[in-house]
C-alpha cells in the first residue's frame, strides 16, 4: 500500500531565490480520487508559489467545504490555513485580511461552495475588492456529496446517471466582471502552461483576483454528454491569448506583429506578457472582456486565459484606509493614543 509518498525528490531540483526547492511547497498526500482535476490545480499552486518565491509562513490558504475545499491540505503545508464552513470562506478571508494585511491570501472554493450556498458571500467579496486570490475548482457538480448537478452545470449537460440539466448555468467569470472584480481569468486543470502564469499574476495583483478553473470530476462528471469532462473541455477550449508571467520588467526585445501581443504591467513591477491575442479583445477593457466571454459561450466555446484586469485596482485596505500595519503589531500607544488625541478628535467634531 502506498499511502506514503517517498521522501526522495529529483536530485537536480532547482532552488528559488529563498533557497527552497519546490518540495518545500508541497502538502500532504492527496486523498482525492485518482485523476481528479483538483489535484492538478494543487500542483499548479505549488509551482506558482515556488516560482514567486513566496515565504510559506507569509501565506494563508482559506477554503469552504467540498473536494475542492479540501485541497489546501495538499499544498503549502508550511502556510497558515483555515478550512471554514460551506460557502463562508469569503467572510473568513475578509476578517483575516483586515486583521493582518501582511499575508498573501489564497482562497480555494468549488462551484457548489461558491455558486450555490456561498453565492451571497462571493458577490460581496468581489465588490469589496479584497486583496486575495480566489480560485474556483469548477467541476459542474457537488463532488464531495456524490456528484449532484451544481449551479455551474451547463443547460443540456448530462450527468453520470443520464439526467439532463434543465437550468441555466451561472457563469462565474462573467459575474465577477460584472461585479467589478479587478482581475478575472479562466483556465483548465489540464493546462498548467496557462494555469501557472495565471495563478502567479493573480497572486501579484493588488485586489480581488478571480480564476475560474474548469476541473473535471473523474468520478461523477467525466461522462459522455457532460460539458465538464476532460474530453469535452479539451475539444472546446479557446484561449484569449498565450500568457507569460514575467517577474520584473526587463527590456522587451522580441518584436511581435502589432496588435498580436501586449504587456500588462502589474503594481509590483512584474508584468504579464500576452501573445496571439484574440481578435477584438482588450484585457484592460471590461466591455470587450464581457463580449469575448459571451461570444465564446454563444459559439459553445470555453474561453480561457486572462479575461480582464484593472491595473489601477484599489483594494479594500486602501479604499477604507485601514491601519497600514497588521493589527497584531499595534502597540498600546497606537491603540490608546491618550487624552490629548481624544480631545483633538472631539474638537474636530464640534
Amino acid at each position: 500500500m502506498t499511502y506514503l509518498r517517498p521522501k526522495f525528490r529529483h536530485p537536480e531540483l532547482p532552488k528559488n531565490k529563498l533557497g527552497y526547492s519546490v518540495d518545500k511547497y508541497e502538502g500532504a498526500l492527496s486523498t482525492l480520487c485518482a485523476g481528479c482535476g483538483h489535484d492538478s490545480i494543487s500542483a499548479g499552486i505549488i509551482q506558482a508559489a515556488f516560482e514567486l518565491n513566496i515565504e510559506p509562513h507569509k501565506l494563508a490558504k482559506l477554503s469552504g467545504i467540498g473536494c475542492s475545499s479540501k485541497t489546501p491540505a495538499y499544498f503549502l503545508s508550511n502556510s497558515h490555513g483555515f478550512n471554514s464552513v460551506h460557502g463562508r470562506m469569503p467572510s473568513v478571508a475578509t476578517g483575516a485580511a483586515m486583521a493582518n494585511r501582511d499575508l498573501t491570501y489564497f482562497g480555494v472554493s468549488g462551484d457548489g461552495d461558491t455558486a450555490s450556498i456561498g453565492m451571497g458571500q462571493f458577490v460581496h467579496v468581489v465588490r469589496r475588492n479584497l486583496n486575495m486570490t480566489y480560485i474556483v475548482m469548477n467541476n459542474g457538480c457537488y463532488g464531495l456529496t456524490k456528484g449532484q448537478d451544481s449551479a455551474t452545470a451547463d443547460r443540456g449537460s448530462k450527468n453520470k446517471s443520464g439526467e439532463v440539466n434543465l437550468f441555466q448555468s451561472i457563469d462565474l467569470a462573467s459575474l465577477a466582471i460584472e461585479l467589478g472584480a479587478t482581475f478575472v481569468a479562466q483556465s483548465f486543470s489540464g493546462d498548467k502552461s496557462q494555469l501557472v502564469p495565471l495563478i502567479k499574476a493573480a497572486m501579484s495583483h493588488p485586489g480581488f483576483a478571480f480564476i475560474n478553473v474548469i476541473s473535471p470530476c473523474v468520478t461523477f462528471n467525466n461522462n459522455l454528454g457532460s460539458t465538464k469532462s476532460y474530453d469535452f473541455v479539451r475539444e472546446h477550449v479557446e484561449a484569449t491569448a498565450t500568457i507569460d508571467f514575467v517577474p520584473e520588467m526587463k527590456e522587451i526585445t522580441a518584436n511581435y506583429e502589432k496588435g498580436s501581443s501586449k504587456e500588462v504591467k502589474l503594481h509590483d513591477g512584474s508584468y504579464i506578457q500576452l501573445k496571439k491575442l484574440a481578435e477584438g479583445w482588450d484585457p484592460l477593457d471590461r466591455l470587450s472582456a464581457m463580449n469575448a466571454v459571451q461570444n465564446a459561450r454563444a459559439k459553445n466555446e470555453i474561453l480561457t486565459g486572462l479575461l480582464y484586469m484593472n491595473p489601477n485596482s484599489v483594494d479594500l485596505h486602501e479604499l477604507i484606509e485601514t491601519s497600514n500595519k497588521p493589527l497584531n503589531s499595534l502597540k498600546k500607544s497606537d491603540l490608546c493614543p491618550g487624552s490629548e488625541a481624544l480631545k483633538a478628535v472631539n474638537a474636530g467634531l464640534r
Partner: protein
Amino acid sequence: MKPTNINDPEYFHKVVDCQHACPAHTPVPEYIRLIAEEKYTEAYMVNWDSNVFPGVLGRTCDRPCEPACRRGRVEEEPVAICRLKRVAADNKGDVKKHMPQGPFKSNGKKVALVGGGPAALTVARDLAPLGYEIHLFDEQKLGGGFMRSQIPSFRLPETVLNEEVNFILDLGIHTHFNHFVSSMKDLMAKEYDAIFVGTGAPRGRDLPDLPGRKEGDANIHIGINWLSSVAFEHTSKIGKKVIVLGGGNTAMDCCRTARRLGGEQVKVVVRSPFSEMKASPWEKEDAAHEDIPIIDNHVPKSFVIENGKLKGMMFDKVKAVYDEKGKRQLVSAGEQEVFIEADDVLVAVGQENSFPWIEKDLGIEFDKWNMPVVHETTFASTHKQVFFGGDAAFGPKNVITAVAQGHQAAISIDLMCKGEDLNVRPSPFVNLVSQKMGIHEWAYDSAVETDKRYAVPQAEKKVTLTNRKKEVELGFDIATGFKEAERCLNCDVQTVFATDKCIECDACVDICPTACITFTENAEENDLRSMLKMPATNHTQDLYVSSELKTNRVMVKDENVCLHCGLCAERCPTSAWDMQKFFYNVTKAHSGCASHK
C-alpha cells in the same frame, strides 16, 4: 522520437540497472526481495543459477552492480547488493536438493576443461546435467583457481569456497588435480569433443631490469606467487618491514596478508596518484584500517643491497601531468631519491597470460600480443573445438566475468556438439506480470525507505591481524540484512504505459515524487530531453516515449531516477499506468531451451 518498443526485452532489462551491469545479469531485485521475505534458500538459488558462487561473490565480488545501482542516484549510496548476496548464502537451508541431481544420462560427448577456476567450473556445472562427460585438469591440488590460491582466507574462508566448488564437482565431474597440462597437442590427441581453456592469467609481472633485482632475489617475491604459496601453506612468515609495489587489488591482498605473517611496518608504494589507483575503494579502506600507509607518486628505481642482503628500495618522486587529451604522464619531481627500508618486497604490478603449453601449429591462432584470437560472444577460438573463457580469454578481470563467460562458452560447446550455429544465441527468459492486487495494493512492497546504507560489521583487528584465516567481515545479521534489503527500489517492477487508456489528466505527472513524467509535443531525443519537467541530463538512461495521444502529444518518462514507487499507477484513474514485474534471466546451457530445434 519513435515510441519505445517495450516488447524488446533489452529495454526493461536496462532499467534494472544492477542486473544490467552484472556481467552474469543476476536478477538482483528478485533475490533482494526474497531476502526481505526471509526466503534465503530461494534467494541463494536465484544467485546460484546466474553466478554459481553466491557465497564467494557475496564476499569478494568486484560488484559492478553497485556503482550502477539507481539508489546511488537518488541518495548517497547504492544498495549493498554484494553483501546482501552473502546474507542469502549465510542463512540458506538445504540448497543441494534444488540443484540438478545426478547421475545424468550420458550424451556420449566428452569435454576437457583446462584450469579449475570459476570459468571452467561454470562450464562444468552447465554441461554436466546435459550428460557431458567432463574432465577437469588443474595443476593445483584443489579446485577453485585463483579464488583459492589468490583471494586470502581473511576475505574468503576456505569452507565457503569448498562448499561451492563441491556443489559442482559433485555433479560427477572427473577431476585431474596436481596435473599441469603441458601440451595442448597431447590433450587434443585424446579425442575430446571440445576443449575449454580456463587457465587464467597466471604469470605475475616482475621488475627484472631494476638494479639489485637479482642480488636481492631471496627477499623479493612476485605477489601472486607469494599469495598462492601462503594459501597452500608453503609460506608462513615475512620480515617486519615490507614494501608492497603496486596499486591494484593484488597489492591490497599482499599488504594485508603480510600484516598477518609478521609484517609490522608494511607500506604500499604506488607510482600513480592515490585517486587513480586500480584497487577498489573498499580495499583501500580496509588496508588503511589495518595501519598500512599507501605512499603514492613514487616510482621504484632500485633495490638496495648491502652485504648481499636486501635493505630496502630507492624511489623517484613524481607528479602526474596530463596532456590535452587527458593522457597521464608521470614526470619526475626532480627531488632527491627516497630510500625506504625493507626486509622483504612484494611485487604486485600486474599479471599476464601465458600459454607456453599451447603449440603454435594446432590451428589456434594468437595475436601480436600473444593472446588467443577469441570471439567476443561465442568464446570460440579459431579452432572449431577449442574455447576460451575467464582471464585466459581477454586478460585478467574478475570472478563474475569469468562466470558469465563460462556460461556463454558452455552454450557454444553445446551448440557445437549438436552441430548448430554458434552465432544463433538462445534468447533470454523473460516475463512481465502485473503487480496490481487492489486499489492501493501491490504484490510488491512499494514503499520507499529512507535508511542510509548499513555498514558491514567487522571482527576486531586484534584478532584478525594475528590469524590469517579469521574472516574480517562478519556479514549483516538477519535484522540488518532485512533493513538493507528494504533500501532496494525494486527497479524490476516496471512502469508500463498504455496510450489508449490515458485520458491525459496529469495525475501521474503531479504525483511523481521525482518528476519523471512529462506530457509534451514530440521532438528529437536531444530536444525532448531538454523539454521535460526536469531536463533528462543522464544520457545513459533511456526515455520511455509513448505513441501519440489524443492531444497529439506524447508521454515521456525519464527512467533515470524513477523510484518504482507505483504512485503514478495508483493515481491513474484508468490504469493506463501499471506496475509490472519484469523477470529476465540469461539462458544457460542447462536451462533446456538453449537449442533452437
